[in-house]
């Protein structure tokens, strides 16, 4: 089940080959992004609609940039000022933009499952999930594993694509924080585990999802004991806008028990990578200075958003072989 010519709703069920195809394609687009003319004609004449029902800076910008660099036409619906404000249903909005002749829709929605629902409404349009509620954020998961592979491969003087999935074999990933409400955690875990990494999660019990015991991860009670174990520290955003505050006694206590403070950071191995999907709550899940430390690859994650989303748009919309670029 390659992502070629399909909607990308979730990373669940994708094989290592499916994931590597996206990563390798993205790698070829990194090069495009370094050119002075950062544009290829891969999606010329195609129309990509960008439909964000939730506020977003980086995801929206990086999707729209990706589409434009592939020469697609971008229809950007500003939900806040559209007929959605007048009570138009998701189905009617989708029907309206489909009538304009679109090839793909990039959807961000506050409701889990919204992307799958839209995919049912418009079976001939490729739907790319740019984050649905607390469910999945596939392109974030992809850019996270892409970033890890890129950096680890470079340390060995190789390109990521030359290493396949080998660098994930036995890789230790420690995910910290609000797993329960995090769509990034669900996509990250699917990607890391499929590629062969070992994942531990550390969080207060109230921030773990129900049924976590059936997930392919190990829950650890103490963050401290796993800090030295980790090759990758994947921090998650404490989503105060989703009322996460009620799940812990206070933000200060969360920081004291699960925050990546300077003191805890000292226990992390020097070659480990510190990641965060942003936007960062500095001083809550991560100390401000640690966020800017050399181990932190947060800005690299942001930079890789564009090539990953170019790869996803290219594969899902054009569905063509890489050689036809």
């Amino acid at each position: 089940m390659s992502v070629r010519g399909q909607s990308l709703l979730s990373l669940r069920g994708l094989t290592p080959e499916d994931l590597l195809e996206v990563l390798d394609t993205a790698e070829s687009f990194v090069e495009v992004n370094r050119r002075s003319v950062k544009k290829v004609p891969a999606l010329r004449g195609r129309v990509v609609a960008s439909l964000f029902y939730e506020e977003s800076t980086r995801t929206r910008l990086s999707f729209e940039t990706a589409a434009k660099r592939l020469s697609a036409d971008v229809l950007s619906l500003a939900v806040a000022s559209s007929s959605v404000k007048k009570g138009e249903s998701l189905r009617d909005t989708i029907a309206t933009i489909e009538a304009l002749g679109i090839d793909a829709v990039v959807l961000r929605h506050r409701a889990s499952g919204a992307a799958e629902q839209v995919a049912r409404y418009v079976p001939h349009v490729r739907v790319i999930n740019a984050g649905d509620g607390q469910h999945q954020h596939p392109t974030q998961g992809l850019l996270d594993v892409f970033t890890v592979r890129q950096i680890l491969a470079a340390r060995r003087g190789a390109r990521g694509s030359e290493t396949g999935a080998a660098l994930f074999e036995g890789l230790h990933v420690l995910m910290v924080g609000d797993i329960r409400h995090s769509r990034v955690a669900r996509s990250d875990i699917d990607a890391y585990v499929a590629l062969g990494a070992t994942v531990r999660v550390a969080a207060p019990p109230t921030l773990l999802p129900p049924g976590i015991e059936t997930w392919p991860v190990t829950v650890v009670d103490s963050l401290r004991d796993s800090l030295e174990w980790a090759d990758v520290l994947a921090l998650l955003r404490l989503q105060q806008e989703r009322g996460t505050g009620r799940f812990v006694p206070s933000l200060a206590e969360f920081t004291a028990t699960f925050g990546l403070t300077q003191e805890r950071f000292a226990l992390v191995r020097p070659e480990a990578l510190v990641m965060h999907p942003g936007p960062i709550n500095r001083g809550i899940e991560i100390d401000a200075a640690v966020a800017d430390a050399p181990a932190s690859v947060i800005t690299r994650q942001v930079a890789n958003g564009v090539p990953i989303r170019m790869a996803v748009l290219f594969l899902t919309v054009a569905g063509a072989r890489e050689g036809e670029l």
Partner: protein
Amino acid sequence: MKVLIRQGLVVGRETRVADVLVIDGKVREIGPGLAARGAEVVDAEGCWVGPAFVDLHAHLREPGHEDAETIESGARAAAVGGYGAVIAMPNTEPPLDSVAAVGYVLEAGRRALVDVGAAAAITVGRRGENLTPMAELAAIGVRLFTDDGVAVRDAAVLRRALAYARPLGVRVAEHAEDPDLVAEGVMNEGVWSGRLGLTGRPAVAELVTVLRDLELAREVGAPIHFLHVSTAAALAAIVSARRGGVDVSAEIAPHHFTLDESACEHYDANFKVNPPLRTPADVAALRRGLREGEIDAVATDHAPHAPEAKDQPFDEAPAGVLGLEHAAALTFEALGAESAEPTRFFAVLSRRPAALAGLAEHGGWVEAGETANLVVFDPQATWTVDRDRLHSRARNTPYHGRAMRGRARTTLVRGTVVAHEGEIA
């Protein structure tokens, strides 16, 4: 007006194959080879002839949400489903919390195809504070009081309701889910909710409310009814309390004993109900309870919603599914289909719910002299649910496309054929 039902398996004090002659709304005679002269003949060979079904729990949406259902359309769906009587739930707009509001429903019900009774709210506005005029409501025929949709949050209010209801001969009925524990939940809390990123309604929310209510009913010495019991643990608590002497009755809904939480996998709001679809173990426990006689009634929790309301993201769509037109087939299947006992089948679909609703003309054995509220149920019939051919105004069935076994062939209300072969007569 004469109807002759021929050659059916007549479910009475003794169950036997016979003809049933109905004249002027009453069962006149039961026996072999009765004369058909001047009578409308209903062929019932291979069918069960029993008391028409009685639904304790139907949301007829009137007044307030006539876009989803009306008393008239809900009664049509009921007739086709084999029902002779339905109890309308009080969570309308305005809610059925006054003599005037209940009177409106009963009046509209007199013009409907089947008998329509009403449950009234326990508290004014279903706000969980002041009791409704329960004595006046009992005087116009209300036997069940419920704030269905939500449990009574304040234990003191529920205790007061139980005490006030006791001498009236009426029953307080709870939607047993602790409102604080369910909070904003939209499906069963568990492996599936965690994976799908949907907020859960934990099973323990049902259990803690059932346990609280059972103890209050025990202390007050009042009867209590639990609506749509959905978990193995709550059912076990009810059975245990009943053995301990509490006057407790329980209904279960077909969707809870035929579907589990995995049905929510694709975020289709036609599988969103409160209480939510539970685990396969809960489904198995409810089916076992049904077969072993621990359940008083199968009640539909028929909950129509307009298509555009259901066609929203899962956590924004309203909860509830249709039930009246497929409940009998699903009950038949859960009781073992060909091995199902007709007496058990009619006990949960008609006799016991009629007694709980205080409907004297319903739920009797098929015997000479009884009011002819009857159903001819064909256990051999096979059919497929088609949401576009249901008689409800709404289409929100979770069973679209599902093959069913067993169907009400003919429904009689006071001796008149009101539905036949899936259509209004």
